């Protein structure tokens, strides 16, 4: 077990290095452009060159990357080229917003997709057809289109929720819920559409298995068969779908944060990437890579817990 964990850790570290180095390399070599953008239109060539040196952008790629990596190891993610704000400070303000959005959506997705997927698989008929239709629609319509429609209906027309902005739960829990409701709903529709279909398929697959017929033949109540046996065996593909949903939600959050003016990580990453604010971009990449690795790990753990066969691998 310890060996397996160690192997996972080494693999995760390798993924981290490869991804961060790849992103860093893509942004390398733009020192003059960045310095000019920082200083503005009327910057002189001498001023630009001085700024390049000040920001350390005249160093070779490997040197710059190593400096960044060393900083990360010491908890120093650097400072924004443009605002000089510490990247750690910027992330500490923004990551909770994105995480709240993503994980609240994920929680609701898990609950709703299980309910809908199981119901559709068990009851079949018109419910199943409705779910399939909704799945296609929810997957086809982008989240930001849904977001705009929600804003129009619930914020502008009926004035039920705020159109933009974020209230921290520390400031007001009810204000937080209100400010996060429409963004979560915008992401939820597409996420549930995909995950519910996965659960439905997994449950249908299990319902057709011999062991289910055997359990029915023994007179076990249908409810018990579904909750004690079918769901447990249908969980792995469902959990895999859910962990993939997290990655989709992280990407979708970038657009949703724009539409609702949420001060999240996605909005910051979008702005930082446009102006090549390398420390901020790398800070965001670091957080995302860590989230991806942790979610993958948690998903594997959950599957192992639910499915004893997976423990032997």
């Amino acid at each position: 077990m310890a060996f397996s964990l160690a192997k996972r850790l080494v693999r995760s570290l390798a993924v981290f290095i490869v991804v961060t180095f790849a992103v860093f390399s893509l942004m390398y070599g733009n020192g003059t452009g960045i310095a000019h953008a920082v200083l503005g239109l009327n910057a002189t060539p001498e001023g630009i060159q001085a700024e390049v040196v000040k920001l350390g952008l005249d160093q070779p790629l490997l040197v710059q990357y190593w400096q960044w990596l060393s900083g990360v190891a010491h908890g120093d993610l650097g400072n924004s080229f443009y605002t000089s704000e510490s990247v750690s400070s910027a992330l500490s303000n923004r990551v909770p917003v994105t995480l709240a959005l993503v994980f609240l959506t994920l929680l609701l997705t898990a609950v709703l997709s299980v309910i809908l997927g199981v119901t559709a698989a068990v009851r079949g008929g018109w419910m199943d057809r409705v779910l399939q239709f909704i799945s296609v629609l929810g997957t086809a319509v982008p989240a930001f289109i849904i977001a705009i429609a929600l804003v129009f209906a619930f914020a502008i027309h009926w004035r039920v929720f705020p159109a933009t902005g974020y209230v921290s739960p520390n400031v007001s829990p009810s204000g937080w819920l209100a400010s996060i409701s429409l963004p979560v709903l915008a992401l939820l529709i597409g996420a549930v559409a995909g995950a519910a279909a996965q659960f439905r398929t997994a449950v249908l697959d299990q319902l057709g298995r011999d062991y289910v017929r055997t359990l029915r033949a023994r007179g076990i109540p249908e409810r018990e068969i579904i909750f004690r046996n079918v769901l447990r065996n249908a969980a792995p593909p469902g959990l895999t779908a859910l962990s993939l949903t997290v990655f989709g939600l992280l990407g979708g959050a970038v657009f949703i944060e724009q539409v609702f003016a949420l001060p999240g990580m996605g909005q910051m990453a979008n702005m930082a990437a446009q102006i090549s604010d390398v420390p901020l971009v790398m800070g965001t990449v670091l957080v995302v890579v860590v989230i991806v690795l942790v979610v993958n790990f948690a998903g594997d753990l959950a599957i192992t817990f639910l499915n004893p066969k997976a423990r032997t691998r």
Partner: protein
Amino acid sequence: MRRIPKAFAVPVTGLVLVLAGCTSQTAAGSSPAASSSGGEKQQLTLAQTVDFYGWDPSNQPGFQGWAAEAVWDQLCKTDANGKAQPDLADKFEVTNGNKTFKAHIREGQKFSDGTPVDSAAVKADFDYASKNGGGQADYKGIKIETPDANNISITWPEAQGPVIDNKACNPKIMPASYLAAKKFDKPVGSGPYVLDTAASTTGSVYTFTKNENHWNAKNYPYKKLVIKVITSDTAAVSALKTGQIDAVLVAQPSVAQVEASPNTKVVKFQGQTTRLLLTDHLGKSIPAIGNLKVRQAINMVFDKAAMAKSLYQGNAEPTGQVFRKGTDAYIDGLQDPYPFDVAKAKSLMAEAGYSNGFTLNLPTMTGQNFETLMPYVTQQLAQLNIKVKQVPLTGANAIGDLLSGKYPVVLWQLGNLGNSALQIYIESTPAGWWDLMHQPDQYVDSRWKQITTADPQTAAKLQKEINQYQVDQAWFAPMVYMGTNYAYNSSKVSIPTESDQEALTPKLRDFK
């Protein structure tokens, strides 16, 4: 009918309760209603479409620069025509043949950290501006004298002419100790507001409380100022319509829906002139552009009236000059010498020996309305067999590449300034960053030199001569005056004045 299984009932009920609990929160965070108390109002909530780059005073934007205007005073402020108005300096004059700006600093002013505003602090700020930020070139070689704590004179090595006011009024004034330490985590100034760091999040929302001791406090009626960063036009319009913000710049396509909303108005600024900059007058990079007849031909293929009507939905005005109406360089009654006439344009190209045209690389960037303009410009230039190749510029390199001279011809919605002399300096003199090829021209350069030492009337006459020359030489292909659209909640806010010499947005002091 099957009942919902109990195991599902709990989460479903929970979901309903969560969402129901939100219905009591309508328009959370909406801007408080204005209430007058001796002329004072509670809160002004503005949105800006881009964030600014921290609190380094040498690196503050003029465009949507309300945060800087809130926390810092300057020695003087420029009005809509670029003329200096009192700020920290209550008296000032330009002497020494337009080389020296002498000012008297108001008595008894203090920074937000309690230290006094004096000539030593102002000197430190000008010294800092000469070595930091994008405007260093404006303060190269200056000498500063501070005979006492309330008097200062700044002398440039050469005469500055009508741009001396802009240069004297630009640096933000803060205590010298912070500049020396480059300590810019929060701004310290003597401005009409003080940043509330606890209620601010970088890149998202900045909150300021009024400085009741400010020398001009009565001109800023709002006790609290909130600036939100909303980069999406959709989000900004939604926020304005639901009362979450009081004012914001909106894109042209959003104007109609904003104007249709109750209690919202749109101020239409015309601080820009859409034009092609034809900067390679000597034909060094694009020989064809060095030919006057080619430049004139390019001027004649654009139907400006149709552009104003169709591309700008009527929110533009055809023009044959790049300077704003009412400025010193503007020539009243000038007939456009290049009317829309494709046949004539083609014959000019033939006379110049370019009937087969040439290839032209035109850079494009987001945010400059190229999606609307470029297809038309491409189509019309094609009538002269000029094949346009669009070169998208993105990321941090975009500005550098644009101004590098790599693209001598650029399509841009470039500002027309309230101080036309400044515009001439920026666009037409070799030192100007929008004179992309930085090519000397004896006519313009000699007149510019005279402008720097001339009295105002002579300077105005010389500016008109430069304008006429540029029109005759077709240095630009001006198309329309257009500008930005500033939407605001008219039931809460009024904007009775427009102080921005760039005419892009109201200044903070314009909001009442």
